[in-house]
């Protein structure tokens, strides 16, 4: 595999309000490259842009600027129904979102890959009572072992969430205030000031024992 699994090339999304005088209400920017299969933990407060980031990475949300290159292919230039063969977004909501079709499908390229290379898990429900957590974590590892890139987005509210994060993820992304900051280790993640304010002192204390 020569191509990096994912490249976010000066990716930018600007949400605006108003039809005539456009006032930007929210901006998200990301610029990073991940070459190797990995399990990436994504954290950040609600409304920081995690879902928007994921949607852009799977091609269901058109970026304002920049590109998303999955395994060497610009996902926004691939036929709508074949985008899930590159990157796939597992989200909680039961609502089905349709692609906003700007360009007709026949003008777009086919996906070079049959199976998705990038899997994004958007706040999977880790419920300690039913015991599925172990199977879910094994599944992430299995995907990674098959050479795929796994993003797991978490919103830690209990200490075992941090446990999961530190156990499963090899690298981290902190999404905050419209920016995306990579962290190589769990320690550096929880050392980030923004992560500290987001998680709060109690969770940071627990995290400290895990790091």
């Amino acid at each position, binding site marked *: 595999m020569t191509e990096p699994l994912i490249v976010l090339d000066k990716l930018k999304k600007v949400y605006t309000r108003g039809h005539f005088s456009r006032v930007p209400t929210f901006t998200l920017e990301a610029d990073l490259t991940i070459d190797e299969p990995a399990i990436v933990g994504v954290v950040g407060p609600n409304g920081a842009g995690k879902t928007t980031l994921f949607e852009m990475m799977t091609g269901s949300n058109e970026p304002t600027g920049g590109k998303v290159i999955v395994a060497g292919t610009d996902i926004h230039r691939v036929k709508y129904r074949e985008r899930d063969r590159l990157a796939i977004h*597992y989200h909680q909501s039961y609502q089905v979102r349709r692609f906003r079709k700007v360009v007709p499908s026949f003008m777009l390229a086919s996906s070079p890959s049959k199976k998705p290379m990038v899997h994004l898990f958007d706040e999977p429900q880790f419920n300690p009572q039913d015991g599925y957590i172990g*199977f*879910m974590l094994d599944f992430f590892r299995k995907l990674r072992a098959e050479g795929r890139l796994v993003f797991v987005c978490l919103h830690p509210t209990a200490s075992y969430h941090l446990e999961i994060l530190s156990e499963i993820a090899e690298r981290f992304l902190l999404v905050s205030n419209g920016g995306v900051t990579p962290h190589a280790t769990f320690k550096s993640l929880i050392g980030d000031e923004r992560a500290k304010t987001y998680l709060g002192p109690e969770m940071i204390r627990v995290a400290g024992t895990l790091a």
Partner: protein
Amino acid sequence: MALIEAKGVHVRFGDRVVLEEVDMSVLEKECHGIMGPNGAGKTTFFNVLTGRAKPTRGELFLDGENVAGLPPHRIARKGVARSFQIMTLFDEYTARDNVMVALPQFRDRGFDMRRAAAGDSHFKSEAEKVLADVGLADKADIRAKELPYGDRRALEIAVALAQKPRVLCLDEPTSGLGTDGVQRLLGLAQKLKGKLTMIVIEHDMSFLFSLADRISVLHWGQVVARGTPLQLQENPWVKRSNLGKFS
């Protein structure tokens, strides 16, 4: 050779994965459990298996024959019976009539317009036999909609059993049942085990662990784990949850 063999069964709906290239095999007379959280695609897998949903792609072999995409009645006639998570009974019929209509002999006479169905004591006794098997013998004359919840669940199973199926598919049979109801159901299921092939969808882990020969864990439309209950229980997180060791 496996009685049921799913190969790359794939169902999508908009941008939502319902089933992603699911492979699964169920042996003859095996009791195979399917578990997973809500929205994992368990019921969709059943729907594909029983003809209610067509897979986007993939194959589904029943005894060596590809049945993917066949209409429900064809698959039912091949000996696949199912219960529904949201109970689907003939509400205005009595328990006996619900079972009677499900009998294959009755189905074979479905276009008979001349004789009265009620006049046939053979159907009646057959139906009552099945009702007795699930413990509803004394409720044969009560209309399905008037039965208490637990009995309705039992009747769902009776209707499926009346079809004399090779494969019995139960979709969350314990849902809505109290502890007693679950125990009664477990007893019934264990009685059936080994007599026919069973596929049981269940959210309740402990129920499946005590019933199934093998279990597939379905999540995000994919088989995330599979094995015997013993193997699955080895998972450290499962152990922890069973011991209640969570802060």
